[in-house]
């Protein structure tokens, strides 16, 4: 299967915020993802969909160089953030991860206070000033639509929050360092419908301010929040384009089978 993916994003002249070129990832020599190329247009939401094990998380983690921490993972290709390859030799992965935030499937707050959770990225980034820290923490919590629920217990442990609140806290923690891109790996799959709705509303509010890529197993969710959709199958990008086009009028039969509910 060497044919290139069906590419139906409008061929605008505008450079996407993040452009992925011929991305490949192998774990201990076993190829997990090959020849993936697509772009995340500035301040939009792109949903990554596809059956389990097709490489969605692997692609997402390649974008903020998380594979650097996995000894057996090997990444090839380029990931251009504002036109500059994040894998270029002189680029510091720490800097990349500050500009590209990540939210994981299972809420993973630190066993620290709510305040310290949100302030973590700022502190390791060198911000010491207390008033400024407090201001940035409040900004991030408001951004993540959590401020009203936690403003009176910032010093309490984050582990006392509900699952949905914890996930919004993790989003606030990612937003606190003011990333330009936010990657979300099945951010609602561990949450109940009410909490899911809150997260989706939050993603909708962030649209227009920040470039997002979200892995999801729910086609309904992709329909609700995504501007663009990328469909992956067996480690390859099969189809990519406007959400409605890909989901309603898929060109590739594998995409059609998946969105029609016949696969996955």
């Amino acid at each position: 299967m060497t044919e290139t993916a069906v590419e139906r994003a409008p061929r605008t002249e505008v450079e996407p915020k993040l452009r992925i070129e011929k991305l490949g990832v192998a774990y201990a020599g076993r190829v997990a993802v090959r020849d993936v190329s697509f772009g995340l247009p500035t301040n939009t939401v792109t949903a990554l969909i596809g059956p389990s094990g097709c490489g969605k998380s692997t692609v997402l983690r390649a974008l903020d160089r998380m594979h650097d921490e996995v000894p057996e993972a090997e990444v090839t290709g380029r990931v251009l953030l504002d036109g500059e390859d994040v894998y270029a030799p002189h680029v510091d992965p720490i800097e990349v991860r500050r500009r590209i935030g990540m939210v994981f499937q299972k809420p993973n707050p630190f066993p620290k206070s709510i305040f310290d959770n949100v302030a973590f990225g700022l502190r390791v980034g060198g911000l010491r000033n207390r008033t400024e820290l407090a201001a940035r923490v409040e900004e991030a919590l408001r951004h993540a639509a959590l401020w009203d629920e936690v403003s009176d217990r910032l010093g309490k442990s984050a582990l006392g929050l509900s699952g949905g609140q914890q996930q919004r806290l993790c989003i606030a923690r990612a937003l606190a360092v003011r990333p330009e891109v936010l990657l979300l790996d099945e951010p609602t799959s561990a949450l109940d419908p009410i909490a899911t709705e809150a997260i989706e509303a939050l993603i909708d509010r962030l649209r227009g301010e920040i470039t997002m890529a979200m892995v999801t197993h729910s086609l309904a969710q992709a329909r609700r929040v995504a501007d663009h959709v990328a469909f992956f199958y067996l480690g390859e990008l099969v189809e990519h384009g406007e959400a409605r086009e890909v989901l309603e009028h898929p060109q590739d039969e594998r995409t059609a089978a998946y969105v029609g509910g016949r696969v996955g």
Partner: protein
Amino acid sequence: MSRGDRWLAWGSGLALAIVLFATSALFGVTLFEGVPRLDLAFFVEAPDASMVGGGIAPALVGTALVTLLMTVAGVPVGVATGIWLAEYAPRAGRFGPRLAVLVRAAVANLAGVPSIVFGLFGLGFFVLFVGRGLDHALAEGAPVWGRPGLLWASLTLAVLTLPVVIVTTEEAIRAVPDSLREAALGVGATRLDTVFRVVLPRAAPGIWTGVVLAIGRGAGEVAPILFTGAANYLPELPNDPRDMFMHLGYHVYALSTQSPDVDASRPTLFATVLVLLALAFLLNLVASVLRSRARRMA
């Protein structure tokens, strides 16, 4: 109930009876013979030369000092090794994982070495090699460094307790979920920040358990200090790390074998044993409290 079950029930009952009997005999004798001898003077006075009267103050102080020095010398090395094994070695290129395998094998072997062998090692390496070497280098006439003393005994015990600290530290760090590391790295933390601000605080109760277990083990060992610093009878307290010292465990040995009149020494002997046991229980108690805290966090 089948025959097998009945046999099992009888067998278990018998085993239980044996354990209870052994425990109560041990404590019964110790308490019965030791308690009458306990008073304030026992804790603050030096033993007299006959090993019948006096107290155990120098042995208490010596045990505390050697254990303290052992902890200060050994724990940082052990914890650092555990951190390296768990957190850095797997990512240290092709060389790191292989070196880690070697280090783990060495630690496992170290843990299996009988403690008397540590005593001989301490004598050969610390006292004779390092100590005599220092004497030569500093052109001391009579041996100053090259004789048994508090410092060498502490270092020997430190080596003995290294495996406990290394293994518990590595396990405690491995038990920290990767999701927390990813969370930290994901907002731009360095590996060092991740380890010190997230991983270690979370692993701390487990690491402390290992440290307390190591202290308990080191405080009770006699064989390693036999040739490296413990004194049979030395009423003066050490005031230099190169001085010899008295030690609770060694004092028990001396009272039971070296006393001119073993029968007259019995109450003193059992009172000393009582103190030693009380210390061991205390340390075990602290360790199990820490361990249950560590488990609750996991």
